[in-house]
């Protein structure tokens, strides 16, 4: 009876609660989600009422069913027993209820608080942009996902509860995934960050970054919490950056200009292939070093001074930088410019250098030809006036000389005056020859023969201290030239060599060869149409010339001889004649190493081929 009185109510409630909490299939979170504290309250009241009804029914059964089977006088006693039981049972139930009510209320309050906390977390997690997945270490099944997670992979919560991380990670197999999480379970690793892709329900792949943690609180089922972040935007930005970097590299690497970037301390940060070639060091060797560690001090100082100018002004500057390369001195027009970061602070200095050697050469040529032209006009005018002035000076001296008797006083003076006039006349003639590149009388000239004649004349006129050597290749084809002018060219060059040699013993060598453009290396500065050329070289073993002299050697009126000895027109005339023959002239010399003039004249066959219109074959 005692066990019937009251016990079942509390027991039932307790067991029900215990069962709910300890059910391994149902999660505490789920219970919390489903539990309604008010329901428990109602349940307690209902149970009390039910016990009361049950006790009443039982007393009724005792009175009407059991009572009939007993003797009549026992009925009162049973009746009294019955009512006593009803009251006792009801009181017991009430007492049990009264005892359990505060417990119930406490529980309800706890539940309500837990529910509140959970709802708070749940809402927060759902509002979080990152996706939260929780799964069991054994089955790998998800047991919690936030809203972001469902949205990311496109599955509903219920669907996901039947899935595992492998179902949304196409890059992983189960074994691979288990291998990944194993160190987390055994505690050798606290968390694991990795990048992979998630497959959306519609098949779209989403690049994600995952932070995975193993959570194993005491008395609770261990679980994995995965915070998953969609990195599509970042990936796109990274790819865009990569593409931009590739484009930048392609431009820098294929640029015909030398490009380099230095940091504010002058250390190289970037060197393109052309710059590597020029610096004769690889980019790897250059990076992190300053100009001082790569170039000579003076060169490095010049470069660093330019860098400093950029740092000081914060503006781009243009500088001409010169380099000695395998084929000679090169000039670069280098633009140096500051590179700023987002805050506007200067972080580096960039440089782009273009080889302007050819441009400079052409400019110099143009300047030279303009100078020649203007000098030509000037010279023509001067020559005309000088010639007119010379007429009376020369003519009257001659007349005066005629009037004086042989051996008469003053005759010698007049003869000297006349000789001076003759020299002046020749000078003016040379100036005129230069100013008037008259159309030469072109004819077929065998240069070998012409040189032979000239040498005969030279042997008669040059001092015996000068040895004349010729080396003439007989295969050289004839050229179309004015023989008189060619003769003048030879004589002028020979006279130049004689003056260079002075009275010291030396050799004048004349060489004749046939060359073809493209096959033979041409001296720098020589630009000729493709074809066959006769190459006439005249070299002497004289003292040679320095670079400054070489640069001005063909300038009219430029002479290294003492005033009154040279006209400065000889080589200018040679230059004019050679150019008018569609040829070219070059000079090479070094102090103490003699000088060599090389003249290139197109052979007649080449000229004919160039000018003849293409004819139909017959």
């Amino acid at each position, binding site marked *: 009876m005692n066990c019937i009185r009251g016990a079942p109510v509390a027991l039932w409630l307790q067991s029900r609660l215990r069962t709910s909490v300890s059910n391994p299939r149902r999660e505490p979170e789920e219970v919390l989600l489903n539990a309604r504290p008010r329901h428990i309250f109602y349940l307690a009241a209902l149970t009390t009422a039910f016990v009361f009804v049950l006790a009443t029914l039982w007393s009724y059964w005792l009175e009407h069913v059991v009572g009939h089977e007993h003797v009549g006088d026992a009925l009162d006693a049973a009746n009294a027993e019955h009512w006593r039981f009803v009251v006792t049972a009801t009181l017991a139930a009430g007492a049990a209820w009264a005892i359990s009510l505060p417990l119930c209320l406490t529980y309800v309050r706890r539940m309500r608080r837990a529910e509140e906390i959970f709802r708070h977390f749940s809402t927060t997690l759902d509002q979080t942009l990152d996706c939260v997945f929780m799964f069991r270490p054994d089955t790998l099944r998800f047991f919690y996902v936030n809203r972001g997670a469902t949205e990311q992979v496109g599955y509903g919560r219920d669907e996901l509860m039947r899935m595992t991380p492998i179902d949304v990670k196409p890059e992983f197999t189960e074994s691979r995934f288990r291998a990944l999480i194993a160190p987390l379970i055994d505690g050798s690793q606290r968390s694991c960050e990795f990048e992979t892709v998630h497959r959306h329900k519609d098949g779209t792949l989403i690049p994600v970054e995952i932070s995975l943690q193993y959570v194993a609180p005491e008395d609770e089922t261990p679980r994995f919490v995965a915070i998953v972040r969609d990195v599509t935007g970042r990936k796109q930005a990274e790819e865009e950056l990569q593409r931009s970097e590739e484009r930048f590299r392609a431009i820098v690497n294929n640029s015909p200009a030398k490009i380099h970037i230095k940091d504010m301390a002058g250390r190289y940060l970037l060197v393109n292939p052309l710059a590597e070639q020029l610096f004769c060091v690889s980019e790897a060797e250059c990076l992190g070093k300053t100009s001082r560690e790569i170039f000579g001090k003076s060169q490095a100082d010049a470069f660093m001074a330019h860098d400093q100018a950029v740092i000081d002004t914060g503006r781009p500057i243009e500088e001409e930088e010169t380099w000695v390369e395998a084929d000679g001195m090169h000039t670069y027009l280098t633009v140096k410019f500051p590179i700023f970061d987002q805050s506007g602070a200067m972080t580096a200095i960039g440089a782009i250098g273009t080889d302007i050697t050819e441009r400079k050469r052409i400019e110099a040529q143009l300047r030279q030809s303009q100078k020649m032209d203007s000098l030509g006009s000037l010279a*023509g005018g001067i020559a005309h*006036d000088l010639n007119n002035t010379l*007429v009376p000076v020369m*003519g009257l001296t001659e007349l005066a000389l005629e009037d004086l008797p042989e051996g008469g006083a003053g005759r010698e003076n007049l003869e000297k005056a006349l000789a001076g006039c003759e020299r002046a006349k020749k000078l003016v003639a040379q100036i005129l020859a230069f100013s008037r590149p008259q159309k030469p009388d072109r004819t077929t000239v065998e240069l070998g023969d012409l040189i032979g004649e000239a040498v005969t004349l030279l042997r008669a006129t040059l001092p015996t201290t000068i040895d004349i050597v010729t080396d003439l290749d007989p295969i050289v084809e004839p050229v179309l030239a004015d023989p008189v002018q060619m003769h003048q060219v030879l004589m002028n060059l020979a006279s130049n060599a004689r003056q260079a040699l002075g009275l010291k013993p030396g050799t004048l060598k004349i060489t004749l060869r046939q060359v073809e453009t493209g096959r033979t290396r041409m001296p720098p500065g020589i630009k000729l149409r493709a074809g066959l050329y006769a190459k006439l070289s005249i070299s002497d073993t004289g003292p040679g010339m320095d670079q400054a002299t070489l640069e001005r050697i063909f300038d009219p009126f430029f002479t290294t001889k003492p005033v009154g000895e040279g006209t400065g027109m000889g080589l200018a005339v040679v230059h004019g004649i050679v150019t008018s023959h569609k040829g070219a002239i070059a000079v090479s010399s070094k102090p103490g190493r003699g000088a060599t003039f090389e003249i290139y004249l197109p052979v007649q066959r080449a000229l004919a081929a160039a000018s003849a219109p293409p004819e139909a074959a017959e």
Partner: protein
Amino acid sequence: MACILLVDDEEAVRYTLRRMLERAGHDVFEATNGREALIALKSKRADLVITDIVMPVKEGTETILELRRRDPSLKIMAISGGGRTGNMDYLDVASRFGADYTLAKPVRMQELLDAVSTTLGEVA
């Protein structure tokens, strides 16, 4: 001996050439430019005209053309200190315009006299 008209704008040149020619026995009269020369030839006949090219008022080549038009048989010698018109040499132009002989200044006496003889067709 020939009668020669000497045309040059420079007095010193005329003086010098005149002395040279006279020494060889030629009869010389002068003009300072082409127009004066044409006027002078109206009153006096010349066997030979020696003319400069670059002169004021009427320059040499034009004078040669005019002289040649008036008297195709007149002997003309051009003499110049050089210079050019376009790509052509003055003396070159002069000979194309009808000068029988051209001579560059400055000139030696013998050279001048030989040229005069040649132009006049005399045996030197």
